[in-house]
């Protein structure tokens, strides 16, 4: 019962924040609502007993990526963009297509979720202790993708610096 209440709270917060992200005129307001959406997602991770992912979401996504977004918003002068039209000229076509796509996926989930319900959820103890299991997986089973991810981050760092420098 408490699980359901917590899920609905974080889910409502995430969906409302997401809608506000997409519709605000002021970009800084969008960034703040994106922060709220990310924190709601972190709450959902915690309620799914993914403690390490909860804290990684807060440190990396909200405390790192979003701060990067806010930095760039402040470096780029957006007063001019504030007074222009915010949406595409053919926004209704885009909205219609997205609603169709969403409805199709919705119908697919609606029809097929019964087969998923026959699978009993694994006991919560299977994910304990969470940090140790994630570390074991990252450094033992999936160490090659881990190293590739480090190289990717290095390349992205160099790329970001080169892109943003005034004179290379």
């Amino acid at each position: 019962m408490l699980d359901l209440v917590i899920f609905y709270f974080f889910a409502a917060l995430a969906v409302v924040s997401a809608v506000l992200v997409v519709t605000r005129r002021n970009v800084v307001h969008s960034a703040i609502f994106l922060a709220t959406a990310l924190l709601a997602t972190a709450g959902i991770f915690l309620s799914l007993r993914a403690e390490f992912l909860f804290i990684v979401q807060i440190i990396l996504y909200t405390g790192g990526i979003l701060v990067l977004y806010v930095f760039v918003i402040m470096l780029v002068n957006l007063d001019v963009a504030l007074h222009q039209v915010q949406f595409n000229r053919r926004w209704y076509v885009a909205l219609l297509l997205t609603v169709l796509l969403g409805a199709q996926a919705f119908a697919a989930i609606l029809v097929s979720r019964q087969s998923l319900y026959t699978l009993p959820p694994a006991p919560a103890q299977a994910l304990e202790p969470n940090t140790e299991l994630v570390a074991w997986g990252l450094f033992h089973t999936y160490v090659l993708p881990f190293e590739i991810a480090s190289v990717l981050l290095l390349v992205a760092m160099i790329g970001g610096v080169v892109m943003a420098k005034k004179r290379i």
Partner: protein
Amino acid sequence: MDLNAILQWPHLVPLICALAIVLVLPLVAGYIVLVERKVMADMQVRLGPMRVGPHGLLQPIADALKLLLKEDIIPENADRYIFWLAPLISVTAAMLALSTVPIGPVFLIADLNIGLLFILGVGALGIFGIVLGGWASNSHYSLLGALRSAAQLVSYETSAGMAVVGALLLAGTLSTKAIVERQAQDGVWFIFAAPVGFFVYLVASIAETNRAPFDMPEAESELVAGYMTEYSGFRWALYFLAEYTNMIVVASIATTLFLGGYLRPFAGTPLFDFLDYLPALLLLLVAGYCFYRVPKQPVGVQKGFMAVVGLLCGGMALLLALPAAAPAGSLLAGAKPGLHGAFWFVAKVGAYLYVFMWLRFTFPRYRFDQLMRLGWQFLLPVGMVNLAGIAVALALHRGLGWGVVPSFALTTALTVAVAAYLVWIGEKQEVRKIGEEETAGNA
């Protein structure tokens, strides 16, 4: 609603601890400001606040009243909602970080499995308060100060993280209470096993809280208080509270990780059990000093006040001595870990904050580019070498069976050598840069 059922509620103790922290923290932060002013005065051979209340002890209350009653000014084209929201984010993030800090074996609001990472993550959320505050003020100085401050915080966060991970290798767990218990088990505080890590964390935490000598973004002669420029009255008080709460948080992390948390020195050895009477002895000495100064006060009110402070210290000494002297198993002896743990924790945090204040009044300010160079080109490499060194020391000690002292002494010496080399390189670069500037200016 019978009392027993309420007392058995599992969330009762965390709730009481949370209420205690939230209610007491603003007062404590205010008195830390007073202590800082008194310490500053002492280092500058003067007296500090003496007027408001006996020996200036009502100064924080007067300051708080003034700030509450000030006019609330919002700049003209500022974004009202973000202007209102930014100090709130700072204060919330700072107070939330105190929820996993173990002030005693029982005084812990939430014993998370990922306690230490939680504090680091919530500290990262505090950066939002600074950046949004600077932006919402609709002023160039505020924005520049906010961006500089946030850049500094982000840079030193990585170095602090490296130092923390080094100590985590020794602890083997992320839960704050388990880290302290591990130091009790091993019998040695982690500062003795990783002194370079402690040094890196000390410097990084001074920069994390925007304290001098790293306070360029909020120095008055530079950017007129940076992101706090347009804030006045209670909103400024919230930012100030957030800054001092952040200081308490980083001091708590350092105490938990490196200085043994709520343990007394030599916690494991029964030989040193006489140290259990040390808190009471110290407080008795303070009480004795207060009574000694009573006849030397000029005014009757101050005489009475000193006598009252002396009596209070004496009372606390008695409170700390009784559980130590009580026979094991009685109710008083059961209260001993909590009371003594709180005393040792507060003493260690106080010592760490005193080092903060001492460094503030001793060193000149770093220029911003020097600050960033120090963070990225000195502290981060030293932190990484420290991490590798601790890993090697642990491999030597646990894997190859070397003794504790040889393995850790060896790696500490290597890390110090690398740090000295980096300092030498940095000095050469700085001298060359000054040489280049001179020739460029003459040309």
